[in-house]
């Protein structure tokens, strides 16, 4: 019985290895097959992304292999895989992470005029090692029935005494909070940023917990009046399959602040990409106007390509002015931001 089990196991094993796309390398090596593929490590996992990649495959005949995972884990993996990495491209949902990959020497310049034309300079790496695909703002969401949005205009206003016990925000281990604080370090300096974080900490309605949606829900429930969160979560709540969540989405309003902190989902070309040409083709495809509309809308985000208009819902929230920094700074000051959070005790 054991022998037959073993043979079965072996047969299954061989079958799997040969049918796993990742083992393509192995069989290419054996049979010298030509590679018409590109390997993508990504932190985005929306069903619509898969749809878009399929369109790319149909258009170009280049097969896209996808490995999904947490941004940090994927970066660590590329780092450990070194020169022999399978990854050609890396997508993360935060500019700070892309900068970290760049700083670790994992990326290389994307040599493409098309990309330079598609994406404005402030949404790209200084050396064009990565580029934004979509943009989101980190804004204040307020209770429509209790708060006059005109009372809150800047991030600094969040530290005012009148919001004592009123502010909801998630934990500092979240990268969006880290990037927000990093942006304040970049624009106003470390001491200002520390004082700001302490001020927000003092005004919190509860210890940080839950995700961004939970903050909006807590505003609707009356636990607090203001929540710091990313714009797209309101879009998701308004389109939720839970009617109660839709109600919450309608009870809160989006308030853009002066110099709104923005962050991006972006894509970088790995230093040791084996399919560099195909990879650049995919970046060009994803930053192109046609794909941009689809890609941004999937997650209720703003397109990074300025020739594409935001969706009607996003436009209804109004125009806003963004922080005047290159997003590279978010990565440069990430470590400092994490240290400040830990030191002041923002959980």
């Amino acid at each position, binding site marked *: *019985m*054991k022998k037959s*089990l*073993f043979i079965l*196991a072996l047969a299954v*094993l061989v079958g*799997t*290895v040969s049918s*796993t*796309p*990742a*083992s393509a*390398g*192995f069989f290419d*090596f054996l049979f010298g097959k030509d590679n018409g593929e590109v390997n993508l490590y990504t932190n985005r996992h929306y069903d619509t992304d898969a749809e878009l990649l399929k369109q790319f495959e149909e258009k170009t005949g280049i097969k896209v*292999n*996808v*490995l*999904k*995972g*947490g941004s*940090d*884990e994927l*970066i*660590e*993996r590329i*780092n*450990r*895989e*070194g020169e*022999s990495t*399978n990854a050609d491209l890396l997508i993360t949902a935060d500019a700070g992470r892309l900068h*970290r990959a760049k700083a*670790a020497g994992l990326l290389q310049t994307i040599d493409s005029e098309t990309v330079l034309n598609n994406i404005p300079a402030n949404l790209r790496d200084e050396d064009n090692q990565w580029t934004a695909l979509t943009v989101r703002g980190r804004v204040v969401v307020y209770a429509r029935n209790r708060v006059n949005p005109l009372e809150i205009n800047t991030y600094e206003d969040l530290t005012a005494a009148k919001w004592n016990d009123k502010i909801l925000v*998630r*934990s500092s*281990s979240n990268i969006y909070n880290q990037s927000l604080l990093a942006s304040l370090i970049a624009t106003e300096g470390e001491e200002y940023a520390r004082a700001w974080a302490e001020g927000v900490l003092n005004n919190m309605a*509860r*210890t940080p*917990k*839950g*995700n961004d*949606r939970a903050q909006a*829900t*807590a505003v*609707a*429930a009356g*636990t607090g009046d203001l929540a710091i969160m990313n714009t797209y979560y309101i879009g*998701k709540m308004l389109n*939720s*399959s*839970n009617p*109660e969540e839709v*109600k*919450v989405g309608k009870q809160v309003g989006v308030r853009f602040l002066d110099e709104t902190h923005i962050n991006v989902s972006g894509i970088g070309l790995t230093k040791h990409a084996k399919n560099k040409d195909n990879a650049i083709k995919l970046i060009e495809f994803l930053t192109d106007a046609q794909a941009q509309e689809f890609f941004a809308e999937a997650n209720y985000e703003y397109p990074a390509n300025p020739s594409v208009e935001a969706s009607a819902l996003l436009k209804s929230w109004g125009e806003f002015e963004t922080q005047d920094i290159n997003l590279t700074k978010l990565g440069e000051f990430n*470590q400092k931001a*994490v240290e400040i959070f*830990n*030191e002041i005790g923002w*959980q």
Partner: protein
Amino acid sequence: MLKRRNLESQFNIWSISSFIIIMFVLIPNANILLNIFEPANENWNHIKEYLLQDYIINSTILVLFTGIFSILIGLIPAWLITQYEFPFRNFFKWALILPLAIPPYIGAYTYNGLLNYTGVIQTSLRNYLGINVNPTYFDIMNIKGAIFIYTIFLFPYVFIITRSFLAKQSASLVEASRTLGRSSFETFRYVVLPISRTAIVAGTSLVVLEVLNDYGVVKYFGITTFSTAIFKTWFGMGDLNSAVRLSALLMVFVSGFLLIEKFSRGAKRFSYSTTKIRPLSRIKLSGVKAFLVSTFCSLIFAIGFLIPTLQLLHWSWLSYAKILNIDFFIFSFNSIFVALFASILIIIISIIVANTVRISDSIFSKIYSKVAILGYSIPGAVIAVGILLFFLGLDRLIYSGRLVLTSTILMLIFAYIIRFLAIGYNSVESGFDKVGKSFFEASRTLGVGITKTFFKVDLPMIKPAVISGFLLVLIEVLKELPLTLILRPFNFDTLATKAFEYASDEMIHEAAISSIIIILICGLAIYGIHKLSARKGSKNVN
């Protein structure tokens, strides 16, 4: 002479394969743990100064209270089921294991979705009765909530082990106590509790290790513990050295816990003077007592399984039109396939090592049995990177410049083996323990080789233990998350990763379908284990 040499060479096949297996388990882990001897860096000082105290306090609170509550709601029904006859007793015998089918992180999402402001309880109160309750009363996203989640989804470990112990071993002592006029409570306090200590500790250790290793629940609830800290320092700060330091501390923590228990137990040991296993004669409950006992068990079953499952079914109903498609068959196939494959390998390996350990008396075999269960006490993230480094090293040996083995499904399965070998090994070992060595020795005396003896004599006798070990591993692999997330190959999703992806995008309803499929498969496996143990025990224990 010829015969004797033949025997020795056969023996070598077992011990050589065991040696190779043990090396494969040891090397990736040792590779990582060696980092401890590197000097501490700047980050470590920062962690020590601002964070470490929180990690220790939170992890201690979680482990301590989850441990205590798991013993309470694991041991009490185990005892009631052994001691009394009451309505639905046979159903609860296996139904109280079902909470194990729900991975704690899915349980956490589900309960939070049920209880929060937009959940069914508060919205019903609000929309139909016009009651606006203070949402903090229903807030489970805190350390108390985490203890609740861990307890209700992990207590079955205590339940299974203590129930099977009590069913088989308690009869003579309990009946003596009854004959001597002790009340049920006194019997429980002075007889059952002390004799089941080893079983309780075994079950609770599993609970504790699961709690310390869990990442999903504490991450979601925003509680900083060792496991979130290990992820954070490693991947967030890119600091492998400090992460390993934290893991090492965690392992010290675990060993400390086990040692304290061992010392406090001291020389007290309860073994049985007779090998005859005999069931306890059950007392039939009726009236109020029967009602109370049944209600108590129903309550545990409802909270641990029925309520979350119904909630997930409801969410699946709300979201299936949006997301259910052919891909779900692929995810299910992937999940079942890797789980089956890993479980088969784990059981074969467990048998090889356990048999070698049993036959040989050398110091090596003692070490083997310790190494085999090592992976279960090492955090998943640490195993993941240990294995990644190990495979990268192998690839450099094989063919430079291309990854041949890394990022294949082999790597993932290898990781499962290291992580869950302990579960398979413990089952097989307990099977061997029950059988003893006398049949083996008789067969050997009659001149039959070790391998032939194994297939003809040992294997048929330990078959139930092998199959239930296999099913236990299957459940664990199906539920596994961190290793799968970090090590999976291209274009590879399982039900668990899919559920986690949706949930981490804050799409709880969309996560429900994958979760329900996981629960269904694990539930079937649990039912299988139950049927198996009922059959093998039908002659003496029921």
